[in-house]
C-alpha cells in the first residue's frame, strides 16, 4: 500500500485525477467542511452564527459561479497560454443568452434586435422566452463558446500583449452592445431581472425544486433559500471542476499545454495550432458563459455595466494569486480574491472594538484606525468623510492591487506555489537539490 512515494509505474497513474492518498483524503475533508459550512446552524445549532450560516453564506455562494468562470479562464490563460483581459465579456454573453431564453419578456418579436426601430412591437419590449434552466444554462455556455470561436481568428493571428488589448477591446464593445440592445440588456444601469435558479420541467407554476424559498429538500432536511442555492451551485462547481480536470489531462489538454509552452514547436510536432487555440477559446468561453449565467441568476439581477473591466481583472488576480495553470490554485484564488473585502471589513470591525484593549493590541488598533480628531491612522472609521484617511472600502481596493503586485513579485506560482514549496521542502528533506 505505501510504496515509494511519487514512484509512478504507469502513465495512467501519473494522469490520475487524484494521484495520492493524501489528495483523496484532503479533498474528502474539504468537501465535508464545505457541506458543513452550508448546513451551518440549521443542523449544528450550537455553532455561533458568526462562524457559519448567514454572515458568510451569501459571500461564499456568490463566489461559486465566479469559480466556474475562473476555471474557464484558467483553461485559456493557464493551460493554453493565451492572454485575455476579456473574460467578463464572455460571461456577459452567457448571461444574456440565459436571460433571453429563460427570462420573462414580451414574446419572440421582442428578441429581434432593433425591434423598436423596425416597428415590430407597439411598445418597447424585452426579450425573454421563459424557458426552464435545463435549456438556458447549456445554451448560455454554448452561445458563449460560439462567440469565443467567432473571435478566435484574432487570437491566432494576434499574439501576447496585442491579444490582451484585443480582448480588452471586447469588454468595451460588450459594454456598448449593452447600451445598444436594451431589448436584451434592460436598463443600462439597473439592468433587468434574471430567471431564478428554480429547476422546472417546462413553464409550470410550481417548480420541481424551488430555489427561492425555504423548505424541505427531498423531504429530509430543512434548508433556507440561501442554503439551497449554495448547495446547488456547489454541486455545479464540483461537476465543472471534474470536467475541467478531465479536459486538462486529456489529449486536448496536452495539446493546449503544448501550444502554451511553444506554439510553433507544437505545430511542428503535429498539434494544429489554429484548431487548438480555437478549442481553448471555446472551452474557456463555455465556462465563462455558464458562470456568467449562474452568477446573474444568483444575484437575480444584473446590468450591462456589471460585465466590465474590473470583473475581467478579478479573474487575472484570481489566477495569479491562486496559481496559474492549476485547478486547485484557481479555486483557492477565487476564494481568496472574492472574500478579501469581507474579511478586511470584518477584521476592521473587530479591530475597532479593540481600541480600548490592552497593549499591544489596543496600541495597534489605535495606530491603524482614525476615529475622530487627533488620530493619525490610515483607516478612517468615520468611513464617509472624503479624503485622507481613507475608509476601509477604499483600502480594500488598495489591498487588492497590492496583493497582485506582491504575489507576482514574490510568489509567481501563487497560493498553489506556496503549498508546493512547503510540500517539496518536506519531501526532499534532508537533500537540498
Amino acid at each position, binding site marked *: 500500500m505505501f510504496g515509494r512515494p511519487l514512484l509512478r509505474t504507469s502513465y495512467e497513474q501519473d494522469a490520475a485525477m487524484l494521484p495520492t492518498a493524501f489528495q483523496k483524503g484532503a479533498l474528502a475533508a474539504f468537501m465535508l467542511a464545505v457541506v458543513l459550512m452550508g448546513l451551518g446552524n440549521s443542523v449544528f445549532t450550537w455553532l455561533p452564527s458568526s462562524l457559519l450560516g448567514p454572515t458568510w453564506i451569501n459571500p461564499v455562494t456568490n463566489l461559486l459561479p465566479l469559480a466556474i468562470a475562473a476555471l474557464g479562464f484558467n483553461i485559456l490563460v493557464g493551460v493554453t497560454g493565451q*492572454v485575455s483581459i476579456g473574460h467578463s465579456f464572455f460571461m456577459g454573453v452567457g448571461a444574456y443568452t440565459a436571460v433571453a431564453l429563460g427570462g420573462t419578456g414580451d414574446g419572440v418579436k421582442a428578441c429581434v434586435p*432593433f425591434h423598436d*426601430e423596425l416597428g415590430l412591437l407597439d411598445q418597447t419590449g424585452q426579450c425573454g422566452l421563459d424557458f426552464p434552466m435545463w435549456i438556458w444554462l447549456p445554451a448560455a455556455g454554448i452561445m458563449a463558446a460560439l462567440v469565443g470561436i467567432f473571435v478566435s*481568428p*484574432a487570437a491566432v*493571428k*494576434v*499574439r*501576447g*500583449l*496585442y491579444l*490582451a*488589448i*484585443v480582448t*480588452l*477591446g471586447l469588454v*468595451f*464593445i460588450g459594454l*456598448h*452592445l449593452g*447600451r*445598444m440592445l436594451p431589448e436584451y440588456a434592460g436598463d443600462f444601469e439597473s439592468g433587468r431581472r434574471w430567471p431564478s435558479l428554480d429547476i422546472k420541467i417546462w413553464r409550470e407554476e410550481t417548480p420541481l425544486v424551488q430555489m427561492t424559498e425555504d423548505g424541505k429538500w427531498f423531504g429530509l432536511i430543512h434548508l433556507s433559500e440561501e442554503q439551497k442555492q449554495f448547495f446547488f451551485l456547489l454541486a455545479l462547481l464540483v461537476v465543472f471542476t471534474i470536467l475541467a480536470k478531465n479536459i486538462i489531462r486529456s489529449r486536448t489538454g496536452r495539446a493546449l499545454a503544448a501550444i502554451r509552452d*511553444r506554439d*510553433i*514547436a507544437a505545430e*511542428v510536432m503535429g498539434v494544429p495550432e489554429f484548431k487548438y487555440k480555437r478549442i481553448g477559446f471555446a472551452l474557456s468561453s463555455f465556462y465563462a458563459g455558464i458562470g456568467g449565467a449562474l452568477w446573474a441568476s444568483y444575484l437575480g439581477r444584473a446590468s450591462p455595466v456589471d460585465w466590465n*473591466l474590473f470583473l475581467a*481583472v478579478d479573474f*487575472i*488576480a484570481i489566477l*495569479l494569486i491562486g496559481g496559474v495553470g492549476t485547478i486547485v490554485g484557481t479555486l483557492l484564488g477565487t476564494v481568496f480574491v472574492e472574500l478579501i473585502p469581507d474579511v478586511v471589513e470584518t477584521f476592521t470591525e473587530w479591530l475597532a472594538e479593540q481600541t480600548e484593549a490592552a497593549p499591544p493590541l489596543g496600541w495597534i488598533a489605535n495606530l491603524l484606525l482614525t476615529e475622530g480628531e487627533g488620530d493619525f491612522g490610515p483607516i478612517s472609521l468615520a468611513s464617509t468623510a*472624503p*479624503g*485622507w484617511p*481613507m*475608509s476601509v472600502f*477604499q*483600502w480594500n*481596493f*488598495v489591498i*487588492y*492591487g*497590492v*496583493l*497582485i*503586485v506582491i504575489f*507576482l*513579485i514574490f510568489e*509567481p506560482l501563487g497560493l498553489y506555489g506556496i503549498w508546493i514549496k512547503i510540500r517539496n521542502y518536506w519531501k526532499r528533506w534532508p537533500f537540498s537539490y
Partner: protein
Amino acid sequence: MSIATALLANAGTTFIQTLVKALALGSVYILIALGFVIIFKGTQVLNFAAGAISMAGAIFLAIMVGDGGLPFLPFDNPLAPSLDDPDLVLWLINLVIVLFIAALFGLVIERIAIRPMVGQPLFAMAVITLGIEVAIRPFNLDATAIQARTLNVPWGADAWELWGAQIPKSYVAAMIIATIAGAVVILFYRSRLGVAMRAVAFDQEAAMAQGINVGRVFAIAWGLGAALAALGAIVYGMAPFPPGGQVSQEIHPILALRVLPVIVLGGLDSASGAVYGGLIIASAEVFAGEYLSQWNSTLGSGYSTIVPYVVMLIVLLVKPYGLFGTAEVRRV
C-alpha cells in the same frame, strides 16, 4: 430651421471645428501613447498603470494651482497662480514641477514593482502594472478628496474664431504641447541614453554585458513615460475637453485605456506609430461622433467611444503587429 438645413448651412464651420477637435484629441492620445511606447521600448512592460499615473499627475497639478495647496502637506503652494486671473508663467512653472513629480512617481513604481520582475514573462510584467493601477486608483479618487477639480488654466475656455468656427485655445495648446513632446522624444532616441534604451529594448542581456546600466535605463523610461502620461491627462483636463476642463473621476481614470487602440495600431514599440495611430484613431472617433450623430439612437449613445476599438480590431486582423510595430521573430 430644421436640423438638416442648419447642418448644411454650417457645413464648413462644422468641418473646421471637427478637424481641430480631432487634432486636439489626437494630441492627447499621442502624448499618452508616447508614454506607453517609451516604457514599452525601454522595459518591455505594457503599462496598464498609465491611467492611475496620468490621473495622479493631473490631480497634483489641480491641487497645486486649483486649490493653491500642496498635496498631503499642510502648507500653501507659494507659487500658486491666483484663482481669478492665473498668471501663465507661474502656471507653467507649476506644470513643470508636477511633471518632475510625475517622473519621480514613475521612478518609484519602477524601483518597487518593475525592477524585481526583470526577466519575467511580458504578461506578468503587464499584470503587475494592472495591480499598481488598482492600488493607486483609490488615492486618486478618494484620498485627495473626491470632488472633481479644476486645473485653473490661464486661458480658461477662451477660443479664437476662425471663419465662423470656434477654435478653443486649449486645443491649440494641446497640439503645441504634443509637437514639443514628440520632438523631445525623437531627440532623446538619438541621444546616448536613447541608444542605450534601444539596445536594452533589443537585447537586455547583451546590453548588460556591454556594461549598460539596465536599471538606469528602466528608471529613465519610467520617469519619462510617467511624465508624458501625466502631461496627456493634464492637457485633457483643459476646457473644453470632456468634461469641460476638469480632472474628472469618471473620465480621467479610463483615459489611458482609450489610448490602447492607438498604441496597438501604431505598434507597442514605435514612437512614430504612436503619432500616426493617435491621429488616425482620434480622427475616426471625432468624425464618427460628429457626422453619424443622426444615427445616435441606433448606434447606441456614445458609439464614438468604441470606434477606436473597432478600428483596432479590423487593423489587427489584417496586420497582427499594428501598422508600425516590429514583428516578433518566431523561433522554435
